[in-house]
């Protein structure tokens, strides 16, 4: 299974991968390109990555979550390339017998992804200018 995609993230398809009759709670997180008042007129973000490590590290993160919440089904994706504002760049879905495990597992994957994945973003503004964005 690949954790990296250049295509739009299909959250419904991800939910379908992990949902099941024994999993009564599903948490789906989507992180999207923001264009808020503090961000400026961001038209898109160009995501670049150390792709081989991104795959490996995302795999380790999901495996850690799977070990902590063994009854959960967990799936995650990071989109790279140009992602327009408003579109999702990262997704984590956890489905578990009960909601606590689903919330906790999804949050663990997202927080560790933010902290550990070798991904960088370059903002592209409406006027065509760009800049690296950290964090």
């Amino acid at each position: 299974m690949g954790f990296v995609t250049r295509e739009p993230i299909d959250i419904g398809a991800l939910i379908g991968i992990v949902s099941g009759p024994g999993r009564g709670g599903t948490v789906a997180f989507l992180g999207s390109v923001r264009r808020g008042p503090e961000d400026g007129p961001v038209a898109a973000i160009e995501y670049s990555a150390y792709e081989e490590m991104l795959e490996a590290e995302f795999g380790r993160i999901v495996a850690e979550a799977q070990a902590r919440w063994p009854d959960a089904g967990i799936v995650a994706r990071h989109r790279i390339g140009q992602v327009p504002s408003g579109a999702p760049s990262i997704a984590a879905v956890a489905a578990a017998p009960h909601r606590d495990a689903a919330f906790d597992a999804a949050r663990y994957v997202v927080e560790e992804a933010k902290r550990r994945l070798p991904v960088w973003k370059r903002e592209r503004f409406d006027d065509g200018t760009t800049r690296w964005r950290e964090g």
Partner: protein
Amino acid sequence: MHDREPTGARVTVRCRLFARYAELAGTEAIDLDLPTGATVEQAVHALRARLAEGVRFPASPLAAVNRQHAAPGWVLADGDELALLPPLAGG
């Protein structure tokens, strides 16, 4: 007695650079020839000495060895892939 260094006295490490660091260095990859036992920190020092704009390159960047995060004191082996990572910005 041999007057050459014994085989294995040096290691070659492939150093990969990404995003802003690749722009700073003007390249995405560079081979570093280092003494055996060299650490990530020493490899960064060698890279900075080699780059025309090395002084602008951070002295203690985040690093990964063979696709895993690595501390500055990590000892490099011949053939390792060292990656120097700008501040992470995933998500």
